[in-house]
């Protein structure tokens, strides 16, 4: 069974998830082709072990992201019985478009695959694990960091295809940068501070970590009530907002019942508090007994390193 991997890019370079897609394909067997929209990362893709060949698709149409235009150029060149992409926003759109063109079904955001052929993913925002059976020809998008990366050391051939395709989507204007701070109710990751932060100015340290993670910044009621500088809109808890992020980081928050009411349904909770008896440790998945002054700088540094990869 042959596989075509749609490579993923990140700021002009090959995104590490591409190697994970190749790794997943390798465990299923058969020749693997990587196709690179806009040619981005083609030479790096060729160095992934297990890749038989790389198709670098270039043309003016890749200057702007236009899902249908890109898909029109890529579809005829995608020949695998199995098509894989990452489940990033663009990955999903492209694979949906390409699979529809080919009349083959797609399953998105899969976290594990078994040969012949079942795919597992979560549905209902993670509340249910679903296993489906599906057979090639088909398309599957894989969740990042769910599959082992293929190693380096490959030396595949790169063939370049020049395409010209009319683009219907034109970028007229870049708007406010996407880094405007998210509201707590919308964020996948939230870092919140309590009265243990000492003074409102210290929330700047939380902001820094939030910037690294693309997270929202929240606060406990104690912080909001004590400090006028911390607005009510940041409050998480019984009378603030109820949040269900993937990750909730509670810093200097004791974990009073009213605060827990607002965040206990978070998927994962990391608590940083200098008091080992703080009730927040009762609900935290990962608890670090430490002052925030000691822990936050290390946290920020470690996250920067991990995410720049």
């Amino acid at each position, binding site marked *: 069974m042959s596989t075509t991997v749609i490579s993923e890019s990140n700021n002009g370079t090959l995104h590490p998830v591409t190697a994970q897609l190749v790794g997943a394909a390798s465990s299923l067997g058969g020749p693997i082709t990587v196709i690179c929209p806009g040619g981005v990362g083609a030479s790096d893709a060729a160095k992934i072990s297990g890749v038989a060949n790389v198709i670098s698709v270039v043309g003016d149409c890749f200057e*702007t*992201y236009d*899902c*249908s235009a890109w898909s029109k150029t890529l579809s005829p060149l995608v020949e695998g019985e199995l098509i894989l992409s990452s489940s990033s*926003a663009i990955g*999903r*759109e492209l694979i*949906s*478009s*390409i*699979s*529809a063109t080919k*009349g083959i*079904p*797609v*399953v*998105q*955001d899969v976290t594990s695959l078994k040969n012949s052929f*079942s795919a597992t993913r*979560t*549905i*209902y*925002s993670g*509340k*249910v*694990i*679903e*296993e*489906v*059976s*599906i*057979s090639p020809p*088909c398309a599957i998008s894989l969740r990042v960091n769910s599959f082992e990366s293929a190693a380096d050391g490959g030396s595949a051939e790169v063939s370049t295809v020049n395409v010209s395709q009319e683009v*219907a*989507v*034109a970028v*007229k*204007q*870049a*708007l406010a*940068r*996407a880094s405007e701070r998210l509201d707590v109710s*919308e964020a996948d990751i939230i870092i919140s501070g309590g009265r243990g932060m000492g003074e409102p100015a210290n929330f700047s340290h939380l902001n820094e970590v939030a910037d690294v*993670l693309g997270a929202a910044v929240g606060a406990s009621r104690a912080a909001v009530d004590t400090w006028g500088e911390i607005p009510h809109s940041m409050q998480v808890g019984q009378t603030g907002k109820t949040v269900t992020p*993937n*990750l909730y980081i509670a810093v200097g928050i004791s974990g009073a019942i009213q605060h827990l009411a607002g965040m206990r349904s978070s998927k994962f*909770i990391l608590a940083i508090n200098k008091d080992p008896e703080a009730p927040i*440790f009762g609900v935290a*998945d*990962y*608890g*670090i*007994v*430490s002052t925030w002054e000691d*822990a936050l700088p*290390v*946290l920020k540094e*470690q*996250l920067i390193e991990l*995410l720049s990869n």
Partner: protein
Amino acid sequence: MGVAVLLKQVPDTTAKISISGGRVDEGSITKWSISPYDEYALENAIQLKEAGFGDVVAITCGPARAAKCLTEAAAVGADRLIHILTDSYLDSIQVQSLLSAAVKETGFEVVMCGKQAADTNSGSTGPGLASTLGFSCVGGVTGVSIDGGLAYATRLGPSGLEKVEVGGPCVFTFDKGDSELRRPNVRGIMMAKKKPIDSLLPNDLGIGDSNSMVVIKDHSSPPEKQPGQKFVGSESVPEVVEKLRGEANVI
């Protein structure tokens, strides 16, 4: 001129989902709602109607209970309601062929839907449908306006938030929009009650029976959360960060 809005009925995001016999127990779901991102699509469509762009046709594909979605859409201003009636589990190709047949029948060139449904969280329908219809697709938009035959959409692109211009027929998939969702009012509710729903079977759209190419094997609950792990001192931070990626996979 007008907008076709695709609505999917899903268990309300606050409803408890329970599993019985290896399958999600739909019978135990107490509240069904329009998938949240679809609501933003509907809101934008109604705004376009108010700006004179034409009628709004709301389309849903699902069992009998899905009709409620359409009544809710009518209560906030949808003009025509189409229900593609089917009880079966559908794969992406089946759903897209039914919806595209219904959209073609409207003759509209602007289609709006949520970027992904709250049950499957997939996001295949919008782009797949665009491909089937031969329309362009702009995904993850927060707002769409139409001026002089061109559409302008705000979307989060690869380099950040941007305004794009699109010519020609297009499918827009919605993220949480810029606009607040309008509330229905009593008058809207009472008029919606009287609005007829065009109920169609797949055969009426010229789509024959077929088997889904994706078959559900099992539904299960996520494993019980591991008991919390406690660490002492800032020296443990690197280890915890590793776990956040390796164990929890949240970053």
